[in-house]
């Protein structure tokens, strides 16, 4: 009787259509926005999980809109075993550099600058995309398929308002005065 049950189970497994085996990727996230300083590195934490039937190699990336503004550092490809639930998601850091966004108003090239933040804060919207390993290439005419899971990300860049700094002018005046004093002093000494 037992052997009949085993045989029947094996037959069932063989009869299950191939369409039942699944391969995909899961993403877990705890933030959809970041408020960051310009000219600074930023890292955000995500989790990749795989509650499906096959092991995958997965990677995080960002959508085109964000690629145009932030410089994403290379993200590692992580191996995620089949049947990995969200509670055991593999942590992945997405790190990128925020460029200089706000143009300072300078009296002289690069010095005596002010930032009024009159244009408001800049923000960029895009997506963080988790992609599973590529699918096998099929023979014959047709298309291969890829699957990805995407979450929104909005990056708002802080504008640090500051008044024009005259420190360079003061230092220059000090140096000039010291030189004048030195010249004056040495001339008098010679006399």
């Amino acid at each position, binding site marked *: 009787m037992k052997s009949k049950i085993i045989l029947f189970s094996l037959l069932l497994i063989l009869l299950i259509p191939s369409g039942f085996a699944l391969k995909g990727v899961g993403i877990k996230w705890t933030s959809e926005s970041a408020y960051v300083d310009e000219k600074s590195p930023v890292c955000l934490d995500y989790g990749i999980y795989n509650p499906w039937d096959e092991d995958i190699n997965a990677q995080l990336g960002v959508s085109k809109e964000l690629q145009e503004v932030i410089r994403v550092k290379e993200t590692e490809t992580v191996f995620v075993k089949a049947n990995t639930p969200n509670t055991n998601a593999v942590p992945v850091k997405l790190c990128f550099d925020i460029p200089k966004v706000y143009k300072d108003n300078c009296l002289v090239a690069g010095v005596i600058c002010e930032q009024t933040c009159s244009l408001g804060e800049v923000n960029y919207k895009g997506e963080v995309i988790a992609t599973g390993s590529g699918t096998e290439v099929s023979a014959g005419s047709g298309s291969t398929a890829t699957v990805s899971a995407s979450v*929104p990300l909005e990056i708002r860049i802080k504008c640090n308002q500051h008044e024009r700094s005259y420190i360079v002018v003061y230092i220059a005046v000090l140096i000039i005065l010291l030189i004048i004093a030195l010249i004056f002093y040495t001339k008098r000494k010679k006399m």
Partner: protein
Amino acid sequence: MEKNNLLVAVVIIVIALVLISYPNFQKNKGLTGSATEILVGSSALIANYFAIAASNTLTTDGIKWSGLNPGDIDVNAEGNNQAGTSNYFITVSSDSNVNVDLCVKASAPLTSGLNTIPLTDYKWDSDIVNPLLTSAIAIDLAYAGADTSIAPGNSDYYRFWLSVPGNQAAGTYTNTISFKGVQTGNVC
């Protein structure tokens, strides 16, 4: 006489120092009296997660047509399984805590060397039960919305049809079809 020179130099340096420190004096205005306060941190962490997967037919066989002829119109892809449930489907894992909208796009037209089959000849439809040719649309290079608000544990089914222009050159035409899941309400 030398004493006077030294005095002049000292006066100049003092003036310079005052000039330098002037902006700092300005900034330090407004000192307050003493006060005590206790700061207590407060935080709440919300985690969202979802997972999607493509059917085995999609990931291993792909979307396939064999034995096509120039002039063929709206030929079913091999996995369409018109007689029953399509073998092409995307499933939202029951290990998800949000509903999912699905999006589809093509990487390029079907291409064989220098020859291509226009995207307008590559049609698709999605449905949670039975995708139909009558509601099919041409696939695009940009993501287009398929079905929305797919709850955890449910699937979205797809069918694909291909027409071959009359003068199409022989060849093995390939491209990649991408399926993307987003949390319901977000754009593709």
